[in-house]
């Protein structure tokens, strides 16, 4: 007994390499690539999506690990959250590992992938603020072995889209050899979607602090002024610590930048106050940013 559609009209391809996968997608434009399927299959089960063909990415072993290139790690798009959460990965890119450990229950983490998190681009995608803070670049594979690179933020903002028969192959992430923190607020103690999340990474070589806030907008937000201001306060050659007041001010700065006050009325009248739920979200972001920076500097 099955509750699923007859399989006759549905073709499933299981390529063994990235270029084969791209070729398969090119040969069958209606086919949909599937990796962990944690988002795709829930759409199929809800009847929102009925792909006539699937290109399974699970057998492409080159996508399931990572390698190093010019001080960067090239992360395969097929890395699962479970794999990224392990200690060896956490030693390389601690914030991405933390976001992977927070990304849902074990069943989801075992199946869901880094590339899928980016392709789905859900506002609550836990890896996204970390990738934004790391200023990660995506290596996009196209037909005929073509490769192009775009910043992850361009894809998330819709400035640059995946063309037909293109796949996210790798994610290029700088190896900063410095503390990174990812913090996430949820509605319960068990796994849940973020109500707000903050990633803070330190870049001692460039004497920079980079921060991104997730889940409160369609894409991660970068409070650039707050980053520059706080980086100028840090003694990069010394202890790197900051006074609690400075950490708190950074939190407030980040929160105000990401959740601004309402604009004044057109007739010059005073702006209406933010609703209580939005004010709470702003307080949450401030607390997360303050805590994240505090932990990164401690």
């Amino acid at each position, binding site marked *: 007994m099955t509750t699923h559609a007859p399989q006759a009209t549905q073709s499933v391809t299981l390529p063994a390499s990235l270029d084969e996968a791209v070729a398969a997608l090119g040969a069958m434009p209606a086919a949909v690539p599937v990796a962990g399927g944690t988002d795709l299959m829930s759409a199929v089960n809800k009847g929102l999506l009925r792909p006539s063909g699937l290109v399974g990415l699970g057998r492409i072993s080159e996508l399931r690990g990572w390698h190093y290139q010019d001080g960067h790690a090239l992360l395969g798009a097929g890395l699962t959250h479970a794999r990224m959460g392990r200690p060896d990965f956490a030693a390389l890119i601690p914030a991405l590992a*933390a976001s992977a450990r927070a990304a849902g229950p074990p069943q989801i983490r075992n199946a869901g992938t880094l590339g899928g998190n980016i392709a789905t681009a859900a506002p609550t995608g836990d890896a996204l603020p970390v990738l934004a803070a790391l200023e990660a670049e995506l290596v996009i594979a196209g037909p005929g072995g073509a490769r192009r690179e775009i910043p992850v933020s361009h894809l998330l903002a819709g400035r640059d889209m995946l063309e037909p028969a293109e796949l996210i192959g790798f994610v290029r992430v700088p190896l900063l050899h410095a503390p990174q923190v990812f913090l996430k607020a949820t509605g319960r*103690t068990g796994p849940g979607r973020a109500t707000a999340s903050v990633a803070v990474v330190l870049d001692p070589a460039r004497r920079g602090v980079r921060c991104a806030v997730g889940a409160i907008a369609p894409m991660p937000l970068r409070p650039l002024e707050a980053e520059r201001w706080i980086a100028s306060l840090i003694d990069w050659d010394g202890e790197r610590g900051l006074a609690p007041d400075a950490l708190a001010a950074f939190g407030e700065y980040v929160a105000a930048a990401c959740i601004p006050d309402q604009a004044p009325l057109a007739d010059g009248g005073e702006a209406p106050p933010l609703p209580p739920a939005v004010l*709470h979200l702003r307080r949450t972001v401030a*607390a997360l940013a303050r805590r994240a920076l505090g932990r990164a500097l401690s």
Partner: protein
Amino acid sequence: MSNDAATAANATSTRITTPPVVGPDTEPPAFGLGVSLPPADVRAKTEGTFPYAADLWAEGLLWAAVLRSPHPHARILSIDTSAAVEMPGVRAVVTHEDVPGESVYGRRVVDRPVFASDLVRHHGEPIAAVAADHPDTARLAAAAIAVEYEVLEPVTDPEKAFAAEPLHPDGNLIRHIPLRYGDPDATGEIIVEGLYRIGRQDPAPIGAEAGLAVPRPDGGVEIYTASTDPHTDRDLAAACFGLEPDRVKVVVTGVPGATGDREEPGFQLPLGLLALRTGCPVKLAATREESFLGHAHRHPTLLRYRHHADAEGRLVKVEAQILLDAGPYADASSESLAAAVAFACGPYVVPHAFIEGWAVRTNNPPSGHVRGEGAMQVCAAYEGQMDKLAAKLGIDPAELRLRNALSTGDILPTGQTVTCPAPVAELLDSVRDFPLPALPKDAPEDDWLLPGGPEGAGEPGAVRRGVGYALGMVHMLGAEGADEVSTATVRVHDGIATVICAAVETGQGFSTLARQVVQETLGIEEVHVASVDTDQPPAGPAAHGRHTWVSAGAVERAAKMVRTQLLQPLAHKFGMSTELLQISGGKITSYDGVLSTTVTEEMHGKELWATAQCRPHPTEPLDESGQGDAFVGLAFCAIRAVVDVDIELGSVRVVEMAIAQDVGRVLNPSQLATRIEAGITQGIGAALTENLRSARGLIRHPDLTGYALPTALDAPDIRIVKLIEERDVVAPFGAKPASAIPVVTSPAAVAAAVRAATGRPINRLPIRPQAAVAAPKS
């Protein structure tokens, strides 16, 4: 490792502790009452071979899909099914025009259309159903039905329902109870007021609704589904199908979780209609979204309270207004309102009480029976008031509660005297004296489970611990004159006993209890419980613990009758009464051990059958001033909640729930512990996360991502501190049903603890993070 660290590590590693009452199972006797007999189907359920309705199959079956309204309030101008009918593979499409019998139904109040005909009254109301040879075809065909709506303004604020245009021919006011008890002019020196809001909890069963309807050659139909009230469902289905009740049979399949009514007839009736129309078996397996849209929820409630007390903290008067949002149909609203009004003051002695309760119709999702209904909402409010009173008087909250605790012989505001055991003060003392859980301060910081979870953002410096108390009460069995009768048959043949009783095993443990009762009475170890269908005599709905009381009581009487039949000839032969003979391990022995024979020998290959009924003493409806002996029995519990709150983020983790419960008698220790743990966890859901949100009548997130149930990480350490076994003389075995009371009390206890941690009022459930944010103490 220091002692404290060991305790803390232990506290984080043991999620749920076993209660102190569970003794070693190996001690004789290994069966009968009072032992932890495991359920007979435990193996099938753990191995996944237990058949639920969604697993059923019949040759040539068709699949059903239901078209539901996308609007909460709309006039239907036309329904055009032609596109669906013409789709290949579609075998039948039914709408309100195809209901041959009664077009409205209801388990308690007949006011609900099978299919909406002219008016849609809630989001997800069924409009048409399709049977097709494939589930996707059925779903696509249902979507192809063209319905023209005139969208109307929904009434979603229950306070506005009084003045709104009637949403239903029966009017918007389902019931009004103005309870008057004592002197209206009495006042206390201290007055506290509060406004409380309780959200919409969903029963959220593990298994969504499913069923299989099979047409019979005689023109009747059999419906296989997880009904918790099969005889009522049969009767209402027969009325809708225009058939005699004996032509419809409801066969109860395994129930995949029920903390309220199952299976909503809105799922069963279209199935039966389609099976009768097509002459083929028809199956329906609801999606999670349909499940959320189609079944009843806990009544969202608005409560306004004013408590009067004297300077010592003794309650003088309670005034309250309670408004239940019933959704568009009455369902269990009348019963819920009666419980809410009757228990509005809680298990406290209150000399004067003036409680107004209303249940009104709105275009919000329908409300109905979810365990502890009515009692749970008022518990959160009256316990909030007790905390307020304690704060105002500067008295310890537990001490204030003790000063007012109800006991046997006191009178409820309904005028009913409490005749059953009511050890309220003893319950509270037990949880208060239980040692508090250790702070994890000596454990490595990485091991701390902070609010927000193991990968969350919790920071020890921002976490405050709070301790709160709540007392709760709930009634048992149907109230206000409901005939709570149950019938059971016991058969013994070949040394094996069989129980035939239409009481549905919903997970409450009835079938295990029935086996224990027969084991105890007949001394036969091997007892089977027959599956339930409507060819058996009715046993009533599985609600308010009635099967533990009346159905198990009926089983006991039937077993005793079999015992008499078995022993009478023997007793006669030896000139002694049957009471002087014992049955144990298949052997019959006399009290002095002179006579000994075996059951098998004595039965001579005969079969023994007996059928008996159990009916509790009658109750009466609440009169026009809310007075009357409306309840058969009452149960009480006390809970002490310990919570950790991250006061910057407002995230809450319940660390420990210590409970003392009035259970009458422990019949199955491990089963009882399971029920208490499940009830507390459900209550924690209602306290922290479970709220089926709707906006202008539309359910916003009908899925388990948007509707956050407690996970194993959210479940605290549950300490069953004390089970008071003071037998209730009117109950069979003296046992009080135990499932509902932890659900009723635990949300109030969590709220009290969060209040203590944050100093915030906490007058709304579930507790929103912004309500649990507090300024750090300077």
